[in-house]
């Protein structure tokens, strides 16, 4: 129950901070503009594609690329959104207020994570509403769109947990944002060298986030990919909890 109280408090703080609104407005405007461009390109190529029996449709050419762009933006948006959740509280001296209210470290972390996740899911939903608004006028591949959406949900959940963990360890929100961005980019491209050498398997490829996102964006749902994101999120939240508990213990 106390996790929900913390989530409510964090959600309220998110809504009154200009940062969350500015990020939402700017990214949605950018995505809206890109949606228009993708749609224009889709409409322009409709006649050529009509000749192909199994050619790519609206989902492949508009909806999934739009989600791909959201995934790219998430690398910047999530660290900015999560940077203050714990580092900001620490800096303002308000973290002890939560400790003194008898809220365990795990629930503080979980509550803050849930609030951030709620914002990110709303962001995803608003982005999805763009292709969905045309669902009645075009043919959507619902299965592929659902898989891509699941991929985005998992990716946002993992990045948010990573951001919360970085905020838990940092003394300043800007450091937390930079750390979250660098760790996320490193996780995305850790297998770049291996791929350039033509290696497509092994632990290094398993470690990379791109290995697990791309199949989902193509419509392939695998429990191993889902598990990777769940593990990353769980590990990040566990680290943040441990850090917070240690802070309470040692000051």
């Amino acid at each position, binding site marked *: 129950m106390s996790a929900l109280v913390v989530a409510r408090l964090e959600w*309220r703080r998110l809504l009154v901070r200009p940062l969350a609104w500015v990020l939402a407005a700017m990214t949605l405007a950018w995505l809206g503009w890109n949606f228009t461009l993708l749609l224009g390109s889709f409409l322009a190529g409709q006649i050529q594609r009509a000749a192909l029996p199994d050619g790519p449709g609206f989902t492949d050419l508009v909806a999934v690329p739009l989600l791909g762009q959201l995934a790219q933006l998430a690398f910047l948006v999530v660290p900015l959104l999560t940077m203050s959740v714990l580092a900001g509280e620490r800096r303002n001296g308000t973290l002890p207020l*939560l400790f003194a209210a008898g809220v365990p470290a795990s629930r503080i972390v979980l509550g803050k994570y849930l609030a951030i996740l709620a914002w990110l899911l709303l962001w995803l939903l608003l982005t999805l509403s763009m292709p969905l608004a045309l669902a009645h006028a075009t043919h959507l591949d619902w299965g592929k769109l659902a898989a891509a959406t699941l991929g985005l949900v998992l990716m946002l959940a993992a990045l948010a947990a990573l951001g919360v963990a970085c905020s838990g360890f940092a003394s300043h929100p800007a450091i937390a944002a930079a750390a979250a961005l660098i760790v996320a980019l490193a996780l995305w491209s850790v297998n770049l060298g291996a791929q350039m050498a033509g290696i497509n398997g092994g632990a290094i490829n398993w470690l990379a986030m791109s290995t697990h996102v791309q199949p989902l964006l193509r419509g392939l749902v695998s429990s191993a990919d889902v598990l990777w994101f769940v593990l990353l999120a769980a590990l990040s939240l566990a680290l943040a909890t441990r850090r917070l508990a240690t802070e*309470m213990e040692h000051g």
Partner: protein
Amino acid sequence: MTTIIPATSAPVLELEHLDRHRAGRPAVQDLSLTLPRGQILGLLGVNGAGKSTTLSMIAGALRPDRGSIKLNGQDFLEQPELARTWIGWLPERAPLWTELTVAEHLDAHGRLRGLRGAALREACTSIIERLELRPLARRLAGVLSQGQRQRLGLACALLHKPALLVLDEPANALDPVQVAALRTLIRGQAAAGTAVILSTHLLAEVTAICDRVAILHEGRLRHDGAVRAGDHAALEKTFFEIAMNPRPARAA
């Protein structure tokens, strides 16, 4: 809502042999104290004497390295959730969430302390009236003056009617009228059965409202005794003897 004070004959607060290191040096050493219901204990000491560390441990924001803390006879370190309903804490400089309004602060603190629905609304309304926060209710905490911040911090500490009130420099930045109101409020809380522990640099604060005074120096309890009303000179003499004397034998 009634004041949450469990029916027990045990003191509200019992500290036994508390030790705590901070920044690699002992901040509190072998501190033992008890505080019964309705008593106001003043915690005096020079800067760095260990007052804020002691109060943070009592409030549940910091764990001691060693020793025990009992609240109404129950082990607080084993059950940190006791802090939620039994303790009200005003930390030094009253940290606040600057983006929330005064009313939202009270709502958030009430929820964190387990209040819901009508009880929460009633507690918020009551504390807003008691601390004259009505004109500030919709103002953001970030734009409050230091005195107003202090009043809001105090309101958050009193909101859930705790059995133990822990106040760190509560008169900081308050004007004389507000200080007088604060003293009346603290006395009223004590009269209702709340145990109060407050740290201050002001000896006059202690002689004006405290029943008892404890003096900390270099993290150790060096004096613990009753305050005789108006006997400011005696307290001043004791305080300066302790503050100026780096390593005397351990006192009472």
